[in-house]
């Protein structure tokens, strides 16, 4: 029985790790930059380590650096994290059936469901003899190890890199800009992006840098809901195709 269990996990591992290679490269590199960024802003190594492990949602980890450097505002932090990570709700909805009957593994699979892990677990076609639960657990675990490992390495070895780091905090802006551009190309409906820009800019000018996020989130949600009859997007983003 024990040996059987061991083989089940081993077979799943052999099938899982090759599919995580592209993510390994990207996660380690971005994690490394994340750790280095926090190091250069004066945070001890355990900040990026704990944040990359427990938050484990790339965009929000970068935003959290900003929150830590601003005046203490817990409600703002909570709501911002809800909004930035709202997309996870839709990943969850598409995995409802796939995580069924996974026992204890299910809690870890949900905890570690970031964008990239979701995209593998959602689309992987597995042979009959591979246990789906073990496979998905490996994918989730490996991806998280790459990310946390990268962040830890960047934080610990940051002092070995002797460059003028002035302006490196722009990395966060660059990351979000690149994501917007990527989505702009892949989704033909541009009005949600344009609304996100214009409503946020408007609220920033009206309310100032300290107070604009909550009104901006409210305005975006409100206008998107009002436009619902006219913005029905044919593309089914939230369905998980096999």
């Amino acid at each position, binding site marked *: 029985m024990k040996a059987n269990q061991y083989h089940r996990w081993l077979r799943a591992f052999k099938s899982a790790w090759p599919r995580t290679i592209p993510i390994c490269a990207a996660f380690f*590199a*971005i994690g490394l930059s994340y750790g280095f960024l926090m190091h250069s802003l004066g945070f001890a190594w355990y900040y990026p380590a704990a*944040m990359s492990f427990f*938050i*484990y949602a790339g965009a*929000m980890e970068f*935003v959290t650096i900003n*929150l*830590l450097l*601003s*005046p203490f505002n*817990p409600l703002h*932090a*909570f709501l911002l*994290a*809800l909004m930035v*990570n*709202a*997309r*996870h*709700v*839709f990943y*969850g*909805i598409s*995995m*409802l*059936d796939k995580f*069924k009957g996974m026992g204890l593994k299910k809690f870890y699979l*949900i*905890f570690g469901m970031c964008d990239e892990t979701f995209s593998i677990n959602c689309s992987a076609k597995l042979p009959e003899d591979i246990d789906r639960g073990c496979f998905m657990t490996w994918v989730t675990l490996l991806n998280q190890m790459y990310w946390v490992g990268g962040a830890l390495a960047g934080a610990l070895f940051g002092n070995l890199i002797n460059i003028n*780091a*002035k*302006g490196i905090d*722009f*990395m966060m*802006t*660059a*990351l979000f*800009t*690149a*994501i*917007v*551009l990527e*989505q702009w*190309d892949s*989704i033909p409906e541009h009005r*949600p992006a344009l*609304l*996100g*820009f214009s*409503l946020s800019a408007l609220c*920033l000018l009206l309310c*100032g*840098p300290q107070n604009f*996020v909550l009104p901006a989130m409210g305005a*975006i949600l409100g206008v998107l809901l009002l436009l*619902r009859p006219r913005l*029905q997007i044919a*593309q089914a983003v*939230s369905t998980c195709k096999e």
Partner: protein
Amino acid sequence: MSMSVTESIVTIALVVIATMLTRFLPFMLFPAGRKAPTVIRYLGQVLPTAVIAMLVIYCLKDAVFSARHALPELIAIAFIVVLHKLFHSMMISVVGGTVGYMLLMQHVFVG
């Protein structure tokens, strides 16, 4: 850091709780394959793009009101757009844009 250690722990903990809420909520709300309401699925399609656009503005929030009114940031963003059109690579866009901005701040917009 402008925060005390306790404040920073509270902030991180709240971000963790909110993030986990977004991941666990569907499994608490829709057990056993109950279908999600259409308005939720609609938001799933349109909200992510709008929120990322908001985050770009969020990153620029302090620069807009500074002496240079976000001019270096806008130049670097334009550079990222060019990189994206040329290479269509996330990595090149992020690294190129960041290095470009660092060079701008260290050599052009000095002081």
